[in-house]
């Protein structure tokens, strides 16, 4: 795996954290335990990530819309959640979700600006 610049690694860490948080909270809720498999590969200029779990399916077996929460004028109405999938959608590309054989598979690419030449041995 090539060395990533701080901006890319920060974004990658953030997206992975949000995906993993979602799995821990919703796929394996209330103390349920289960494995999570994470793999990363270079793909062209990008880092391609796959995250697999064996827990509950996403609602409707689909990705949420990932729409930015409204920022209202009133302090009391400010959102305290709902940012996770929005951040994933802003930072990652080609996000997919597949439910198959009681597993959840998320995949996404993180634009990393990797030199293509460095990947030609792949």
């Amino acid at each position, binding site marked *: 795996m090539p060395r990533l610049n*701080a*901006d890319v690694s*920060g*974004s990658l*860490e*953030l997206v992975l*954290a*949000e995906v993993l*948080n979602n799995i*821990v*909270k919703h796929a394996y809720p209330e103390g349920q335990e289960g494995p999570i498999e994470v793999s990363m590969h270079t793909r062209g200029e990008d880092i391609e990530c796959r995250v697999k779990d064996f827990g509950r399916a996403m609602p409707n077996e689909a990705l949420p819309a990932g729409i*930015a*929460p409204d*920022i209202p004028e009133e*302090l*009391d109405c*400010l*959102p*305290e*959640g709902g*940012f*996770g999938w*929005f*951040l994933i959608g*802003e*930072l990652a590309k080609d996000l997919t979700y597949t439910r198959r054989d009681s597993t959840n598979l998320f995949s996404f690419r993180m634009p990393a600006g990797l030199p293509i030449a460095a990947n030609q041995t792949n």
Partner: protein
Amino acid sequence: MSARYTSDIETTLDTRMKLESRQEGEDLIVTVGEARVDAAIAVQFKDGMRKFIADGHDRVVLDLSNVGFLDSSGLGAVVAVMKLMGPDRRLDLAGLTPTVEKVFRLTRMDLVFKIFDDLDAAVSPSAATT
């Protein structure tokens, strides 16, 4: 600005949340001593901040310069603290590291908070009134 841990940390050790506070003029400065404010610690952060804001300062500056990583749960906790303070008091932010700044910018929460480059800027005489 070096992180100095005062007796305030004693009150938060039970939650393993490192928060240090000091008075600066009329303001309260709270420095987060954690490298990460994420889902694992968001609730402790909110609880730890609750006792600092209970002192009733009109302006609290949250120094995030030690925090290299903040996720959506951490963001939600910071927003929650501001809401706890109510509309007549201010929670300002200082010292956002690049990835933390990115989270605030993408979610447009940078428009909700007053954000200073560092603590010096946050406590300058003009900062409190702007």
